Structures are given as structure tokens and as C-alpha cells.
């Protein structure tokens, strides 16, 4: 695992984080539940908790889908290419490319579309950035930078767990059952 320069992390006083969605996106409950599952994966292994709020201005983490240039100097590029980005702590901005074909549920590996991208997989990865993890060379890890279309990878690998627990410590209830080898479910030839 890697950390951002200076090892930024949410301060000790911020262990119970809130998140909110861009109200302009009008996301369905089903889409919002994908993010809830993604946050749960990180809270399972750390003392951090994540609670959704409707107050977008005061939330610690702000989630939004945007197209092209959306004002942060990191414009999105349309279908595939760059899928999403997030900022290191304590910034809290989490942006996803609105042009992607986001699959919300079902088995993305069985999709016939070569543009299908699993939303939860990307959400779990970007939350890692929001919490302070950089990219990892460990292919099985969530924090590996790339993910092919039609691929689902949502289970934290031991590399991810070691990294996040270095920053925040372990959840007292965590039983240490992170996967130690390949954890992704993927289709053959899932490359874009």
C-alpha cells in the first residue's frame, strides 16, 4: 500500500464521518445503497463510521457525478478512460464520471457491453483515497489503479487492510479475514 505525501488522514476527532450526495444528481436509493455498501467495507476494518446526510454543505465527504470539466481542474474524459477521482483527507471530494455506464446491481461480469463499469468496485477504491491511501502495485488490492470494464472487485485485500489500519488502527470487531490473494471476480477479456 502507499500513502499520500505527508500521510494525511482524518484527525482523531473525526472518526464518525458523514457523506452526502450532490443533490443535482437526483440519485436513486438503489444507487445510494451501493455507496453505503462501499463505505461499510472500510468501516468493517477500522474504527471509522460513515453516515449519510442530506446536508451536502456540511458533510465531510461530498459525492457527485459530473461530466467533462467540472471545476476542479481534473476534467472527465467521457466513456472509459478515467472513471473517477477523489481527494486526500481531509478534503472529502469524491467525483465520478457521469458519462460511464455504471452498473448498479447484478453480475457485471456477465454484461455484454464492453463499457459496463461496476459502481461499487470504483466506489470502494475511491473511498480508499478519501481516507488517505494512494495507489498500490498489488494487483489484487482495491487500491490498484486500473479496473477493466465488466469487472467486479470489492473485497479489501490484506494490502488494503494493512494500509488503512496503519492510518486509523483496527476495528475492535475485525476478525482479520481480509483476502490474501486474488479477490476479484472478473470476466475473461474484460479489458476495455
Amino acid at each position, binding site marked *: 500500500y502507499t500513502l499520500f505525501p505527508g500521510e494525511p488522514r482524518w484527525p482523531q476527532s473525526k472518526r464518525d464521518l458523514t457523506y452526502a450526495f450532490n443533490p443535482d444528481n437526483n440519485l436513486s436509493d438503489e444507487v445510494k445503497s451501493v455507496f453505503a455498501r462501499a463505505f461499510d467495507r472500510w468501516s468493517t476494518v477500522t474504527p471509522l463510521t460513515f453516515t449519510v446526510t442530506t446536508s451536502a454543505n456540511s458533510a465531510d465527504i461530498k459525492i457527485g457525478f459530473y461530466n467533462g470539466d467540472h471545476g476542479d481542474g481534473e476534467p472527465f474524459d467521457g466513456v472509459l478512460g478515467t472513471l473517477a477521482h477523489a481527494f486526500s483527507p481531509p478534503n472529502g471530494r469524491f467525483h465520478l464520471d457521469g458519462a460511464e455506464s455504471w452498473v448498479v446491481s447484478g453480475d457485471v461480469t456477465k454484461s455484454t457491453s464492453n*463499457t459496463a463499469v461496476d459502481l461499487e468496485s470504483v466506489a470502494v477504491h475511491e473511498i480508499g483515497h478519501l481516507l488517505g491511501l494512494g495507489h498500490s502495485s498489488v494487483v489484487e488490492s482495491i487500491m490498484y489503479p486500473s479496473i477493466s470494464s465488466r469487472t467486479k472487485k470489492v473485497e479489501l485485500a490484506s494490502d488494503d487492510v494493512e494500509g488503512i489500519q496503519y492510518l486509523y488502527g483496527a476495528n475492535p470487531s475485525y476478525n482479520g479475514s481480509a483476502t490474501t490473494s486474488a479477490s476479484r471476480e472478473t470476466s475473461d477479456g474484460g479489458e476495455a
Partner: protein
Amino acid sequence: HFFPNETSIPPLLNSTQCNWDSFRNLSGCHAGEKVDGLSNLKKYFQYFGYINNTSNFTDDFDEALKSALETYQKNFNLNVTGELDDFTVQQIVRPRCGVADIVNGTSTMNSGKSNTSSTRFHTVSH
């Protein structure tokens, strides 16, 4: 675009091309060559932190691009050839996170060791 399941994506989207697909045409390029499109590849590497900020990108396969490629190949566990071999190009065009791999010139993604498991074991043994 949200799709409730994997079968609900309209067929039209199947044919959509990614901006990076043009990089496939660069497969086989190596140091010393001048090929249309290499300047765009340099911008790609700059975006993800492998080339320092500069506004003067040419289509020359120069030392800066070779060095960027070698670091990229090391980070993604590819053979470090410094050339645009097929495996490297396939990795480059794969969809990915927009966060840079190298932030502020510091690359920590891969220490260069070939076996991360042995690295972890070494740490534990201490």
C-alpha cells in the same frame, strides 16, 4: 448513466471508443523514433505523475518518455523494457482512477522488489 443490472445497457454503447484507444497504434514504438501520437501519450504520463510538468510535448520518443515508461512498467508489474510493448499498451488503455500514481514526484507504488509477499514477510520477521 445508471443501469440497474448488467443486461440493461443499450447495444449502442457497445461501440463507444475510449479516448485512449488511439494509444494502441503506438504499440512497438521505442526510443529514438518519432511517431504521431507520442505527444498525447506524454500528456497521459504527465497526468498520472510520470513526467514532470512541461507544456512542450513533441512526438519524439525521448529519454523522458523512456524513463516514464520504465517507472510505469515497474509500478504495474510489467517487464521493464522502456518500450511500448503490447502488454504495456494494453495496460495503458485500461480504464482507471484519475488520481495520479506519483504525487509530487514521489513514487511509492512499487519499490522495485519483484515479490511483495516476501517484502511483507521480511517486515513481519522484524
